[in-house]
């Protein structure tokens, strides 16, 4: 109806013909809104900082979430070993003690979610003589995954590496208490020679780490060395499997019996998972995640309320300006778009700053964690951040903009 009236007025020459410049006006309104925000930037600094920080936090946490979780998982594992699955053959149930074949270990390594698999051989009651004294201990032949799987680190010297295993070198790593008992102190043990079953082994390191106390009375040899030189040492009847994160534990534990059965007998197989520590870790991480995401959400919502509040105040403070613009011929939609563009300018500028800060955070975090940021996920987060800025801008700016646009000229002009 309104358009028809306008067309009639234009056709009658009462109004000039439509210049078809709505898009130009749109562009001008966008420019004016941007200029307005720029000139009154001090008013917006607080909410912009809030939205930028929220966006940066969101992008950093989501993009680096997997790496962070793995790292967090690693640290928590030092305490509880929640992602380590133990598989062994029960010696009591059958006449013949079963053991894990090489092809079985190789197949287990390919299960999705498995990070490391380590195998060990054990000899109980091993002895050594030093300065005419005999010392008894448990001896374990291990591969080089053993250390990382249980998060062991050298307290002194070094641990076995791939070369020691491949070449079957005659080197030994001792538990702290065993080294102290035989050589007087852990430091004194480094470089000493240990005599076992007429073979001499050089002590190259003392085991350390949060969980080293459990192994303080043990001695370790490369698994290849132990297999060829230690009589009566067991076959590989125990395996330890470490999963990437605790989310992988259930699926790996479920897949294990099938994979083993596909490669060898599973008679007497026992799979042990620390379900209780796992649940506790998951619960703890859930709360931490909830706290982080709630903080990010609260920051963004506060930013949104801040914009809403500022825009409402701006509509009141600029009532005369609105009246003046309407008196100059601004349509309701011109006023609506101007205020909405101002809200969107604030949210998009904040989101853009947030994305840049997030990128810096990602780079810093990936350096700390020694990983490379997943670019695809970052781009997805960037798109989500910008989409959220649009939703926030429209959500917070729409009502004040509608209020401004519906203002009566006479009320606005008489506003003091």
């Amino acid at each position, binding site marked *: 109806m309104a358009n028809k*009236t306008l067309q009639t007025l234009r056709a009658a020459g009462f109004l000039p013909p439509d210049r078809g410049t709505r898009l130009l006006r749109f562009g001008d309104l966008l420019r004016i809104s941007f200029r307005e925000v720029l000139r009154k930037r001090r008013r917006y600094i607080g909410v912009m900082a809030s939205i930028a920080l929220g966006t940066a936090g969101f992008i950093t946490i989501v993009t680096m979430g997997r790496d962070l979780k793995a790292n967090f998982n690693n640290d928590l594992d030092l305490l509880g070993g929640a992602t380590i699955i133990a598989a062994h053959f029960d010696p009591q149930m059958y006449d013949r003690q079963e053991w894990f074949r090489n092809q079985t270990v190789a197949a287990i390594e390919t299960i999705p979610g498995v990070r490391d698999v380590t195998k060990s051989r054990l000899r109980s009651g091993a002895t050594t003589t030093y300065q005419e004294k005999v010392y008894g201990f448990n001896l374990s032949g291990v591969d080089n995954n053993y250390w990382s799987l249980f998060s062991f680190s050298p307290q002194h010297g070094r641990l076995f590496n791939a070369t020691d295993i491949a070449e079957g070198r005659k080197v030994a790593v001792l538990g702290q208490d065993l080294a102290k008992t035989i050589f007087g102190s852990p430091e004194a043990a480094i470089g000493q020679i240990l005599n076992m079953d007429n073979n001499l082994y050089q002590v190259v390191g003392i085991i350390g780490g949060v969980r080293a106390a459990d192994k303080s009375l043990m001695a370790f040899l490369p698994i290849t060395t132990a297999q060829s030189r230690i009589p009566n040492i067991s076959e590989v009847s125990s395996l330890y499997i470490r999963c990437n994160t605790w989310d992988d534990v259930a699926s790996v534990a479920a897949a294990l019996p099938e994979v083993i059965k596909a490669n060898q007998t599973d008679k007497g197989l026992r799979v042990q998972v620390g379900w209780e520590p796992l649940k506790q870790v998951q619960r703890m991480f859930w709360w931490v995640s909830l706290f982080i995401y709630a903080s990010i959400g609260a920051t963004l919502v506060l930013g949104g309320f801040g914009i809403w509040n500022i825009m409402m105040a701006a509509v009141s403070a600029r009532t005369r300006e609105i009246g003046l613009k309407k008196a100059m011929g601004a349509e309701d939609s011109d006023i609506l778009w101007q205020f909405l563009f101002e809200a969107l300018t604030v949210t998009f500028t904040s989101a853009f700053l947030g994305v840049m800060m997030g990128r810096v955070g990602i780079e810093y975090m990936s350096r700390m964690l020694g990983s490379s940021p997943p670019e695809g996920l970052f781009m997805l987060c960037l798109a989500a951040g910008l989409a959220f800025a649009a939703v926030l801008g429209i959500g917070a700016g729409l009502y004040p903009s509608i209020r401004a646009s519906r203002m009566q000229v006479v009320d606005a002009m008489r506003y003091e």
Partner: protein
Amino acid sequence: MNNVKKDNELVIDIQHLTKDYISGTEKISVLKDINLEVRRGEMMAIMGPSGSGKSTLLFILGIFQPPSGGVYNVAGIDVLKLSRDAQAIFRREKMGFVFQSCDLLENSTVYENLELPLIYTGVKRRERPDKIMEALQRVNLEHRVRQPSNRLSGGERQRVSIARALVNEPEFILADEPTGQLDQANSERVMDYFVKITEEARVAMVIVTHDAATAARCSRRSLLSEGMLKTY
């Protein structure tokens, strides 16, 4: 005094216009049976004491608020029947306003103040500087084009306000106490501009004032008293 050509086109035509306000159970009639004609090239002063309804009449002329009754035609069109958006388009295409308080956009330059009506009218960006400079030349302020509005004197602000009213080349101009905040010298200068504009651009102008000296410069004068308009 202006030489008004009697055969000039009738721009503003108001018949039996009334405006009532309701205060509780009481009806207050601010405007009673107002009849008014203003032609192109004519400059009309509406005088009256404070509270006589001068500004209300001006706001009705600007279609800022509707009257309670009567007819308001501009060049033969009943503008009160136009839609809200059509009225806005009508305002930007046909009218210019000069306000009592020299309302300029704060934190904006003179150029930006004059650009706004051109934006709403849809004038192309490259055509705007010439139009703005032309309007500023009429009030001798072209040298202040890049000046922030808050650094202008009272007289300069009023001249910018006049230039802004002129920039879209309106057919009629409404001015509410245009000299109310100016000293005598500046008042005379502003009235000189109005006389010049009315004669040169052949616009119709309605000035609301309580200043006799300002009214004396107009071609016609009316007194609004007790809601009635009397020409003298």
